């Protein structure tokens, strides 16, 4: 059943991705009901999958790299559904679906499967630490997507050509604002996640601690520079993409270091 739910969610996101590619190729891209419906479908299936595995494990299902990738995919869709409509960023969904599709595909094709069923004994603070951190990563993922959209729109405007995307992408000022707010949201959630980790008093491998602090510091520096107008919106957009790439690279390492040996 779990496998079917995940396969279904991946299929929904593939539909959204494929629709975007097809319509962009035809020069007639219009984000709207197809993307939103596919994302909603994927989100519902992922929610059911996480709930079922959570019931089986008696804990938040984030005990293996597979679990983490699925939970992060769910977080990205959750943040999109919460934030996207507020900023009229319907196209954000079109850019988000390929990212989530890719993460889900890696989760399913990767060597590590879901953690075994059974009752895990967990400290609620540790659970909060892990889940808040992954939801923060979801916000950072969307900040990276908004950054990519900013870059694309900037290139379109600088090139002085009226491509299909120029008309479909939101105003560049709005994208800059969305990018910055998503970074702040992610940073706030990550800080809260870290605080929960400290409160739990859990023993942390020093390499994991260093990697986590480095990610927190990278985003902190980006935001401080942005706030001080030392980092223009275009560079903030680029920095948010690079920083998320760092998360994607370090996530398997952190997960490996966190898993019980």
């Amino acid at each position: 059943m779990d496998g079917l739910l995940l396969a279904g969610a991946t299929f929904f996101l593939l539909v959204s991705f494929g629709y975007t590619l097809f319509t962009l190729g035809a020069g007639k891209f219009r984000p709207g009901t197809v993307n939103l419906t596919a994302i909603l479908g994927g989100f519902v299936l992922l929610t059911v999958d996480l709930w079922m595995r959570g019931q089986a494990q008696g804990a938040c299902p984030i005990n293996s790299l597979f679990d983490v990738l699925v939970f992060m995919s769910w977080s990205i869709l959750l943040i999109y559904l919460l934030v996207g409509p507020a900023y009229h960023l319907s196209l954000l969904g079109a850019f988000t679906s390929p990212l989530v599709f890719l993460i889900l595909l890696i989760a399913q094709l990767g060597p590590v499967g879901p953690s075994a069923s059974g009752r895990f004994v967990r400290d609620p603070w540790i659970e909060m630490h892990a889940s808040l951190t992954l939801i923060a990563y979801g916000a950072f993922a969307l900040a990276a997507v908004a950054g990519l959209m900013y870059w694309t729109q900037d290139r379109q405007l600088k090139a002085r050509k009226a491509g299909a995307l120029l008309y479909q992408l939101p105003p560049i000022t709005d994208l800059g604002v969305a990018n910055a707010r998503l970074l702040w949201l992610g940073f706030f959630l990550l800080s809260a996640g870290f605080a929960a980790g400290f409160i739990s008093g859990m023993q942390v491998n020093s390499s994991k601690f260093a990697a986590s602090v480095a990610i927190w510091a990278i985003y902190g520096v980006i935001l401080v520079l942005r706030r001080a107008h030392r980092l223009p919106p275009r560079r903030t957009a680029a920095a948010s993409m690079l920083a998320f790439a760092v998360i994607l690279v370090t996530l398997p390492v952190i997960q490996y270091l966190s898993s019980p040996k």
Partner: protein
Amino acid sequence: MNIVCAGISHRNAPVDIREKFAVGPHELEGMLKRILGIDGLAGAVIVSTCNRVEYYTASVCPIRVLDRLQEVLELRAGAGLTPLYTHDSPASVRHLFRVASGLDSMVLGETEILGQLKQAYQAASGYGATTRHLNKLFQRAFRVAKQVRSETSITRGATSVGAVAVELAGKIFGDLSGRHVMILGAGDTSERTARSLVSRGVRTVIVANRTFDRAARLAGEIGGMAVHFDHWQNAFEGVDILICSTAAPHPIVTREKLEPLLARRDGRPLFIIDLAVPRDAEPSLNELENVYLYDIDSLEQIVRQSLDVRRAEVVRCEQMIDSHVGDFMTWMRTHNDRPV
């Protein structure tokens, strides 16, 4: 029952002919009564805009109605001045659907015509001049236009330099209310562009011109503020959109002048619309962070691209329209003999 259409438009008559056929709002009721008096004519809608005057009627004997309609219009406009085109269904139905979709407009894909058609239909309906067939026809025409607009790119892009500038400003800033505009050189195109921006809600317009009186006059007309040309840099700090159209033989807005001003803007974007030839803004300004520079050639290129995109969509629009014409004709056949 047949749908009959007779009219003139920008395609077959110049404005001095079209104006003779125009039916103003105060004449509409009388004109409708006159043509409803034509034997065999069951209902009518008169569409009168600056680019077309068309009569859509429902009739069981189209040839006789067209002859009588021609007589009425010749009387109104003067004999020998009637280069009318005439259609009966299904050509008349297709024609209305094309008109509603902006395919027959002077600017391909323009959307104003749909509002004008709705007004014309509501007015005729208000005077009791429409029939069931005309009601169905116009309702279907509005649906067709909506579908064509939403499912194709026939309305995409702007089709004039001023409209492109406004559209690009929207793509940079989103909401234009609260934005500040500066005009360097009060030319006709810059004035039109500024007026378009004002109509979209920009808050302040600062006008700098070599002749201060002209700057003051334009500023007065559009509710702006005039500054001496040599002092434009002092008033620049809050500016979001800079429109240049001076007659200067060399660039006025240079990298050297602009870079120190940009440093004080906290990363806010600057949109420069350079309408001057020779150009007023150094081309390399487009390389600066948060600066988007469009000269007259790039704006005109976007106009051409928009029109190309619209032209490429015509075939798809016609296919949609054909399908609706078929549906409407089927409905007409099945509802032909019922009383109106």
